[in-house]
């Protein structure tokens, strides 16, 4: 089989010189590990359609995108229906070797700048460094044209500087949005200015008091007489450039709109507007006193009867939800980047502290408890890192790849783990970690702030579960209807009876271990079992609840955690397998990290799936729900004092 694959590989290489660049890097892995290379060669098998399939979207296709491979099935969404794309176990190498050298050379000044000078006055320096234009296409002045992976790599140095990171991050998100779904006119109008830092992009999405029945209080109305939109409302938590008042900004504003001719709730939609800060009617409100990221400036922004034209709408009016997918994807990925660099720094400090501190003659680093803490943090950071670049790689490598779920999961995992690491700091270092203006204190604050930035973690978890269920619901609908009406479909039910797979012993035929280094055999097995369990849990949930599954939020949170763990395991195994096969430094420890993550992840997934299987009467959900009724009735804690007498 191997020889045939090799033949296929050669065959492909001859037929598609366009892709030769991608292969040259991957063939190197071939000599080191047969498993990894077979994955690569199989992936290339899917390429013939690539040349014919490009450039047909309504989305503008730049030069980079023309090199992309055809779209694959979404990775994590398919986990929910128990199918896997094994070839994605080959960690994407989207920045080719020569480009990587160039990139690293280009990034040297950035790294040096941030390492050397601690007192940054931004503005001019930043513009010279080109920090604003990393992900702007090269056609525009100041644009560096980096793809997802490259621009994430390039933003690593500045994400260490927390006071700037937020601002740059949201700026890049706006650029991403414009590049992906902006019209040509909008791109020409804004991208140059954005790239040069004359205009700073900012998201203005969230509000202080969301309305009761809608998503946003900010509303826009189309006035047909003047052919203009009138925007009215207030947005909060808008990040503004610190120390640069009067800096021109470009707000991406989401507003509630009503479709013409469709009355009532059915016609409700949202629209994404681009509003410049010097537009008449736009007014910066007061700054928020935030818990973390206190150097960054967050403000409320008021829009009083702002008159906007049609060309300031991104995409189509009332279709904001469709385009916001791009928006949230970008902000989730770039937000994760912030979290990762913060987590890395926390880990570094924790290690330094445990090396330096001796208690009762024992170094803290030798205590088993500390060692476990450090290793856990290491595993988490490794997983975050792997997930981020795997997701970015998928975006860069395949055309129009659906990574909605992957990016959401990356953020979910990163931010949750970051917070865990930050709180571990409290227990290792103790009260010293909360001294005012100590690094540990500032970083704890930042971690907490990141936890709340944008969407809440609960909402994100629900989003992950719902997206997965949506995908699974479409695929499993026929089977679910049969299972829910057993008397009409006896054959189906008997089939289920004779099915011997169970949560304890899932049956899988994915053979993921063929695609990774043999050392990772058990780890691959863990992934396989976890995916099979997730599939069973999803199937059961849909069968048990029908479409009222969307009301089972407790089970959905579990689902979100399971999907997150599986993706983390997947990314780690893929990355460590690649590292070991090409012999990167400390790759053997990467293998160990991946194994640790998979072992722990598998057990957690098993527990969570078992809880879903047992149902709400066994897994304690029912008790909690009952209890909440009384809590609501008593408006809080309801038990009387423990020393109360009754007689």
């Amino acid at each position, binding site marked *: 089989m191997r020889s045939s694959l090799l033949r296929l590989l050669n065959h492909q290489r001859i037929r598609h010189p366009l892709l030769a660049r991608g292969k040259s890097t991957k063939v190197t892995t071939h000599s080191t590990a047969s498993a990894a290379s077979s994955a690569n060669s199989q992936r290339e098998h899917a390429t013939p359609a690539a040349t014919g399939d490009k450039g047909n979207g309504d989305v503008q296709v730049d030069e980079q995108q023309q090199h992309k491979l055809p779209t694959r099935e979404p990775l994590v969404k398919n986990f929910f229906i128990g199918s896997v794309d094994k070839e994605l176990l080959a960690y994407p190498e989207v920045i080719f070797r020569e480009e990587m050298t160039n990139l690293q050379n280009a990034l040297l000044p950035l790294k040096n700048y941030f390492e050397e000078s601690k007192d940054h006055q931004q503005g001019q320096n930043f513009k010279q460094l080109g920090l604003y234009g990393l992900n702007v296409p090269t056609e525009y002045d100041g644009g560096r044209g980096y793809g997802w992976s490259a621009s994430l790599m390039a933003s690593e140095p500045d994400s260490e500087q927390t006071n700037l990171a937020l601002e740059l991050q949201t700026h890049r998100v706006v650029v991403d949005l414009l590049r992906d779904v902006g019209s040509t006119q909008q791109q020409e109008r804004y991208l140059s200015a954005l790239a040069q830092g004359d205009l700073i992009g900012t998201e203005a999405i969230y509000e202080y008091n969301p309305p009761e*029945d809608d998503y946003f209080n900010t509303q826009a109305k189309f006035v047909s007489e003047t052919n203009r939109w009138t925007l009215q409302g207030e947005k909060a938590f808008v990040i503004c450039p610190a120390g640069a008042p009067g800096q021109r900004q470009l707000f991406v504003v989401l507003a509630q709109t009503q479709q013409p001719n469709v009355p009532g709730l059915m016609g409700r939609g949202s629209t994404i507007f681009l509003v410049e800060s010097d537009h008449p009617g736009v007014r910066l409100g007061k700054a928020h006193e935030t818990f973390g990221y206190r150097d960054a400036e967050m403000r409320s922004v008021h829009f009083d009867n702002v008159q906007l034209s049609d060309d300031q709408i991104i995409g189509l009016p009332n279709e904001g*939800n469709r385009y*916001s997918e791009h928006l*949230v994807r970008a902000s989730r990925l770039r937000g994760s980047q912030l979290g990762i660099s913060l987590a890395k720094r926390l880990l570094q400090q924790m290690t330094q502290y445990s090396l330096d501190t001796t208690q009762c003659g024992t170094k803290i680093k030798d205590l088993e408890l500390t060692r476990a803490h450090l290793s856990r943090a290491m595993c988490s950071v490794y997983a975050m890192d792997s997930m981020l670049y795997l997701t970015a790689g998928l975006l860069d490598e395949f055309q129009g790849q659906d990574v909605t779920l992957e990016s959401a999961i990356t953020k979910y995992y990163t931010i949750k783990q970051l917070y865990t690491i930050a709180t571990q700091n409290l227990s290792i270092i103790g009260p010293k970690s909360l001294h005012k203006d100590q690094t540990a204190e500032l970083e704890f604050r930042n971690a907490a702030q990141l936890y709340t930035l944008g969407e809440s973690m609960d*909402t994100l978890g*629900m989003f992950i579960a719902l997206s997965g269920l949506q995908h699974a619901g479409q695929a499993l609908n026929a089977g*679910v209807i049969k299972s*829910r009406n057993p008397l009409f479909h006896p054959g189906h039910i008997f089939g289920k009876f004779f099915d011997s797979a169970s949560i304890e012993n899932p049956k899988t035929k994915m053979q993921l271990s063929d695609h990774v280094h043999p050392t990772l055999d058990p780890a691959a097995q863990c992934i396989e079992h976890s995916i099979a369990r997730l599939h069973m849990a999803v199937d059961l949930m849909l069968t048990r609840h029908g*479409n009222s599954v969307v009301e089972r939020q407790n089970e959905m949170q579990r689902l979100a955690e399971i999907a997150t763990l599986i993706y983390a395991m997947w990314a780690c195994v893929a990355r460590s397998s690649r590292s070991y096969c090409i012999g990167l430094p400390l790759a053997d420890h990467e293998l160990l990290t991946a194994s640790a993550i998979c072992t722990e992840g598998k057990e957690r997934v098993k527990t969570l799936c078992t809880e879903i299987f047992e149902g709400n009467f066994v897994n304690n959900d029912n008790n909690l729900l009952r209890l909440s009724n009384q809590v*609501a009735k008593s408006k809080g804690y309801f038990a009387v004092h423990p020393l109360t007498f009754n007689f």
Partner: protein
Amino acid sequence: MLRKVHSLCRQRAPAIFSRVYSTDEANTNSSSGAGNSSSRGAGGTKNATTSRLPAIRNPFAAAQEKTKNTYLTMVEIFQERDVHRRNHVEFIYAALKHMPDFGVEHDLEVYKALIDVMPKGKFIPTNIFQAEFMHYPKQQQCIIDLLEQMEDFGVMPDYEMEAMLLNVFGNKGHPLRKYWRMMYWMPKFKNLSPWPLPDPVPDDTLEIAKLAVERMCTVDLRSQLRVYETSELKDALDETWIVSGMSPEQSKLLREHNRQKALYIEGPFHIWIRNRRINYFTLRADADDEFLAQLDERQLDEDDVSHIEVPFFGRAPPRRHNQLGKLRSVHQQDDGTIFAICATGTSTKDSLLSWIRLLESNGNPIIGEIPVLFRFTSTVPAKAQEIEGPATVPATSDNA
């Protein structure tokens, strides 16, 4: 003063003696045991001056000042008067009977004082036969009746009472068993009500009306209770108070209410707060059938899982259908939508009119645009009466 009562009792002994316990129904069953003394007592009425007076008297009926203090004093007098404490059973029965007159029926201390009348040690059985065959049945039954009365009035005994009963009847005594059963159940029942009333329940009708409206408003946790005075309005005829309960949700329903459809003030309905009846009125409209039909989930296919929606911002909707946030509120019942409830001091049409005006001027301007009709002949009270039976229980307070 205590002495005075004492001497008064002594002087009037014959007269009091005539109310002897043959008339006391609680005592009839023990006539065999007390036969001697009561027949002697009956004989004694004829020539009270000549024969020796048995120590049965009913000072409770004759007491002029009916307070707890007098009551306890009388018990004390009985204890001190005679070392034998003759006829203490009859005395206790009499004392129990008159408790409500003195307003002490909820007072544990008084019950303890009565138990204390019993001699200690004498009634404790000394062998198993005595223990099993109810040693001193009349005395034991008397204390069981006392405990029964406590239970009826919801007075919970305490550990001191257990000690007293132990001293009187020993740990095999039937009153002890009764006591233990009470101590098992009564603490469990004591706080079982989901709407606990303050102890003691206030006597003011306004306060009780507040309690009543508050209790009914617990269906919606956001309900707000407001007390208006009709004097806030210029041309109100009745000078009285209005307790009004309404939640923001009801205000919202009212805002969304069709202007063409009338609102009805219905009532009076009754709610009982312990032993007081409160009349209340509702502001309601006919059910919005169209809306309710929209929410009817029976027509929807629960099995179809191919259309699960994912919101990009904000929380996921809690319901599978009408994902735009339409939910049936608890106020939208099948027979009508209830917008507010109230109790007024006078329950008159005028006070209700004031209520509507006050609601209008306090955040519900919409009421001015909708016709409001009085419907005092509501069918609901008739139905309620059908269920509850005719109101034979006298209404102690009917919104005076």
